[in-house]
């Protein structure tokens, strides 16, 4: 499990886990779960198209991710971001279906994209994934305070250059980048659970923002590492274990919160 090839796998998986954790923390705080659900799913057709055209998968993923951000953003201008997100999802899924129907002979690759195939990450994809993950994580850490502030009210952002619209667009782009590179590792169907599970758990365990963010990353790393080991042993998809751990982490967090909020009722 620790051969040269596996070292690369561990490195990429860890970077994906860190970035997905950070993105997830802000996704949960901003109540942007629907966008976090939509973007990975609408990024998937990009990878399918890349398989079809024989170009680098990461490139296909980034193009599709950009298209979905542009879609959500442009449609949101008319109000109702949820409707805009849903419209984008439907359009991209339509595109994905079309691509899938053309590449039935590559079903193994399609399966890997949907459910994750960390051991199948090509050597050529490792550098772009690493660069994008590091960039996305760095950008989120830079925007830590403005993102927290605007989650209270967007009117609190009084700096002229950092308007609510720009901050929201920046967040969507980071979300799209992180989704695109997480997709080959954990799969389109479960990127969402890697983002939302650890963050929901962490925010229930502590009320300190920096600590909650750090804890999110730790839970995310633990989830991905354990999922890789279990997937290696059982030959089941990584995504299955990531999804399972997401659910367990979330329930544990709710339990922790309930215990902390529980006060013995006074005996009358």
């Amino acid at each position, binding site marked *: 499990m620790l051969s040269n090839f596996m070292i690369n796998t561990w490195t990429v998986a860890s970077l994906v886990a860190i970035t997905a954790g950070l993105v997830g923390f802000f996704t949960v705080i901003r*109540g942007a779960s629907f966008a976090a659900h939509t973007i990975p799913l609408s990024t998937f057709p990009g990878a399918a198209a890349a398989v079809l055209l024989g170009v680098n998968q990461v490139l296909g993923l980034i193009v599709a991710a950009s298209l979905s951000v542009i879609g959500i953003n442009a449609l949101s201008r008319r109000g109702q971001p949820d409707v805009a997100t849903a419209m984008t999802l439907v359009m991209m899924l339509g595109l994905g279906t079309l691509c899938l129907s053309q590449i039935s002979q590559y079903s193994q690759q399609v399966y890997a994209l949907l459910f994750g195939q960390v051991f199948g990450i090509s050597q050529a994809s490792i550098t772009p994934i690493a660069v994008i993950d590091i960039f996305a994580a760095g950008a989120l850490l830079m925007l830590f*305070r*403005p993102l*927290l502030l605007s989650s209270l009210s967007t*009117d609190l952002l009084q700096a002229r250059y950092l308007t609510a619209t720009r901050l929201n667009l920046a967040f969507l782009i980071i979300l799209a980048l992180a989704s695109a590179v997480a997709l080959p590792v954990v799969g389109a169907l479960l990127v969402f659970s890697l983002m939302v599970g650890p963050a929901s758990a962490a925010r229930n365990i502590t*009320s300190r923002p920096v600590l909650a963010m750090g804890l999110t990353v730790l839970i995310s790393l633990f989830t991905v590492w354990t999922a890789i080991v279990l997937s290696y042993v059982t030959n089941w998809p990584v995504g299955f274990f990531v999804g399972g751990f997401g659910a367990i982490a979330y329930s544990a967090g709710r339990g922790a919160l309930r215990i902390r909020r529980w006060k013995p009722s006074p005996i009358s």
Partner: protein
Amino acid sequence: MLTVDSLSVGFPGNQVLQDVNFHLPQGSFCGLIGTNGSGKTTLLRTILGLVTPDKGKIETGVGGIGYVPQKIQLDPFMPLRARDVVALGIDGHHLGVPLPSPSRRRAVDSMLAEVGATEFANRRVGDLSGGQQQRIMIAHALVRGPRLLLLDEPLANLDIRSVAEVIALLHKLVVEQKITVLLSAHDMNPLLPVMNQIVYLAHGRSVSGAVEEVVRSSVLSSLYGYHIDVIQVHGRVLVVAAVGAEARTTEMAHEPVHVTSIP
């Protein structure tokens, strides 16, 4: 200090404010009164520079503006303690993750003490009561020491006791620190004991001045465009549509019937 000079603000197909004028000297406690949709939030956001006016000038003096917005989204699970919200008032627009800083901590602690929030400083904001959350938002707005504080309906959805507490806190700040407060509300009643200025918005226009000057039949009638009576009963003031205004009843349904008392 705040001067608003012939201010007009509109959105496409909707002229919200028309030629609004008023002046608040430093240390004023001013109520911005109007029904839902009368443009209170728009006026405050224009003063903050979040909305560009079609016409007019705004002067806010030196020292920055503190702001307590109308809709604060406090998710009960948000990992944010009361003290974190106040700290965001100091450097929330800065980039990067905050590093521990003793001077920031001292500033936050003294601000928390100022608004009487030391006791719940380390609690999750989502777990606090409405009145406690408003105290924290006021501390957030004031922690950088602005000379002008704008609050958008801070008393909405508070119980009577919390309303009295928040007003007492603001009154103390005005008296002790000579901060200028402009506070929007749809009911002027709870503010009457403390406010010395009033800006009344209706149909895009405004009247302003000392409370006794504005809350008068002739002034309110000309603002609303039909007759309004201001009646005194046992030292309380009643603002009602006069008999004969039936023709305007549909419109009146949206207008307030204020029960107020002028001390």
